[in-house]
């Protein structure tokens, strides 16, 4: 009996170990360390320093004793982390900012996922006026946000699910940090805007474009409460993709992973030199608007902060961010992806700035005018990324979901470049697990995409929007 029991327990131990991921990654704990972590959760080993609490955009923590809602040993649960006003964090409407952490016991590796959700830069767009594309969460973030089928959150990415019926990716086993979006500024602004109602029917709208400081507060909390990540992916779609891009330098520097990865999904920062000709640089009117509305060029503001840390960034042309990040982190693997036929981010970029689009006689004409400008901007970005070995660009044509906006939501399917036999997962793997140059690929024709069979899943998800 004793021999049988000994053998049984040893076999059981092997079974438990076998249940762990077969391929141990850099940053993974051993099976035994994982078990220890269950009883003694590892704490912070790279906390905020006194120097980091000073200067421009300091890392500011919750006050001592503040009930932030975190339970270190509550693995596998989506925990709501509250940030006190002292951290500088706040939602657009002045309500408390909070974010969400789902911790695991078996690894230090971490994904920082920034939620998408439009943008706003004036009274109509920030006040949620109907008929105008605006921004997510104008009322702030509820505590039970992750239990809420918010249309933005519903388009959940396989990157931040533990088990996806559709796709597997290694971040599904990582610590997850979900950063919600409530400032309308692609996480890049720093200005309390006062928007007058054009109709004078309502009092002015006070809107906190506070994206930079919210991100800094999230990073401060991560440093103070969790271990330094060994591998870190910063990603998001749409505004979240753009926010991952604009905040990557600071996030990368301060979380200080051994290996950093970036995937900007459908949040391009196109070349838009100040004073540039919109015929050549179609995003110039948008850029002009948001640089002012979000306080980007204020003294000591977001652009100055970026430029102080990225030598190759041109402050007159934020499209140089790609070159600057590539040079700053030559060993990191960085990627950008979006669809050629995107009609969401492109509409935000051009619709309200070109009378010809606003006054288009029909939807087909409107879309053609939008696509024409998107093509110019995308072509330039594609060329830029083709010249950066560690910054890949992946541009499929079309997917029948969410106006062909975001390649990495719901599943990783149908972002294929049929002409080269490539799937989106090929690109993702190139960023996260590849060596040598990060994959560059672009699809020339949408014919094969549009010829695909009806996709019930996509149609269903689109009903949520």
């Amino acid at each position: 009996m004793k021999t049988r029991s000994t053998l049984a327990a040893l076999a059981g131990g092997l079974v438990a170990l076998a249940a762990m991921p077969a391929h141990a990654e850099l940053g993974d704990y051993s099976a035994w360390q994982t078990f220890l972590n269950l009883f003694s959760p590892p704490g912070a080993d790279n906390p905020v320093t006194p120097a980091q609490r000073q200067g421009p955009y300091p890392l500011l923590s919750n006050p001592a004793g503040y009930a932030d809602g975190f339970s270190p040993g509550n693995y596998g649960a989506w925990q709501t982390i509250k940030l006190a006003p002292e951290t500088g964090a706040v939602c657009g409407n002045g309500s408390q900012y909070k974010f969400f952490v789902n911790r695991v016991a078996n690894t230090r590796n971490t994904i920082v996922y920034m939620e998408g959700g439009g943008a706003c830069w004036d009274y109509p767009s920030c006040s949620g006026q109907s008929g105008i594309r605006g921004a997510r969460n104008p009322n702030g973030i509820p505590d039970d946000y992750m239990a809420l089928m918010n249309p933005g959150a519903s388009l959940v990415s396989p990157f931040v699910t533990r088990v996806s019926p559709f796709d597997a990716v290694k971040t599904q086993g990582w610590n997850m940090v979900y950063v919600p979006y409530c400032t309308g500024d692609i996480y890049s602004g720093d200005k309390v805007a006062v928007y007058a109602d054009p109709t004078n029917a309502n009092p002015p709208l006070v809107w906190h474009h506070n994206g930079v400081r919210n991100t800094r507060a999230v990073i401060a909390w991560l440093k103070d409460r969790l271990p330094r990540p060994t591998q870190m992916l910063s990603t998001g779609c749409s505004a979240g993709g753009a926010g991952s891009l604009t905040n990557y330098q600071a996030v990368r520097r301060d979380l200080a992973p051994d290996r950093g990865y970036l995937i900007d999904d459908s949040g391009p920062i196109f070349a838009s030199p100040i004073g540039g000709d919109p015929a050549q640089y179609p995003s110039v009117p948008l850029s002009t608007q948001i640089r002012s509305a979000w306080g980007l060029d204020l003294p000591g503001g977001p652009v100055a902060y970026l430029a102080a840390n990225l030598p190759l960034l041109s402050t007159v042309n934020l499209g140089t961010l790609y070159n600057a990040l590539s040079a700053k982190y030559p060993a990191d693997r960085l990627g950008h992806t979006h669809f050629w036929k995107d009609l969401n981010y492109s509409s935000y970029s051009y619709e309200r700035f070109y009378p010809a689009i606003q006054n288009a006689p029909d939807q087909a004409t409107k879309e053609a005018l939008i696509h024409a400008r998107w093509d110019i901007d995308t072509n330039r970005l594609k060329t830029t990324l083709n010249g950066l070995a560690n910054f890949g660009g992946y541009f499929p044509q079309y997917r029948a979901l969410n106006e062909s906006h975001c390649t990495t939501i719901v599943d990783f399917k149908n972002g294929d470049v049929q002409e080269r036999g490539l799937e989106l997962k090929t690109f993702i793997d190139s960023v996260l697990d590849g060596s040598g140059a990060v994959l560059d690929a672009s699809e020339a024709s949408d014919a094969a995409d549009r010829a695909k069979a009806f996709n019930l899943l996509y149609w269903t998800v689109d009903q949520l929007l």
Partner: protein
Amino acid sequence: MKKTIVVAMAGVALGAVVLMRAEPDVVPPPAVRAPVVEMHAQPPAAAPEREIAVDPSVLATPEARAYVERVDFEARARRFFTDPRALAPAEREREAQALTAAIDRYERARQLSAGEAMNLRIGLVRATVDDEAVQVDRIADIVAAYRADGERREARFIEQQRGDAAFVEYKAREAAIVAEVMAMAAIPDGLTREEYLRRRLQAERVALSH
């Protein structure tokens, strides 16, 4: 030393928990081999083995049980979705029901987001229902239920915010401070008007939070 013993006990105990589900008559042994573990930033190197006494009470800890159950659920779900039609229809349906029960449990415990749970439920329908018309109806029902629940939660949040006295007071103070600062002819401390306004409003939120 104490952590080493805990690690060893936990490892064996968890292994025993996994096996005990299949063989209820198995009794944990009195002594087993287990590696010594140090706390390192990187995964530790292999360590010499030593025999450690097992405390069977570790088996009953909530942490150990929860971890094993979660690992088992995720592995089971991945296996199922890899090739659901490899299972016979009756077995497929049984497994789908078991997974549904687990999804219900984990979602209630906030261990699955609404988005993830919805996707899993949709995946189960696609894996178990062959008739596309029936698939459409069931998936539509799932989506509608989640949408309705989301709308209820959002409405409740907005109502709570409207009734939050501190927030209501802040919004009133915010409007007053904005009007005051926007009318100022000069901004103190060499700050820009925007930065001064931001600091004033943050100070107001800090004050109201205490």
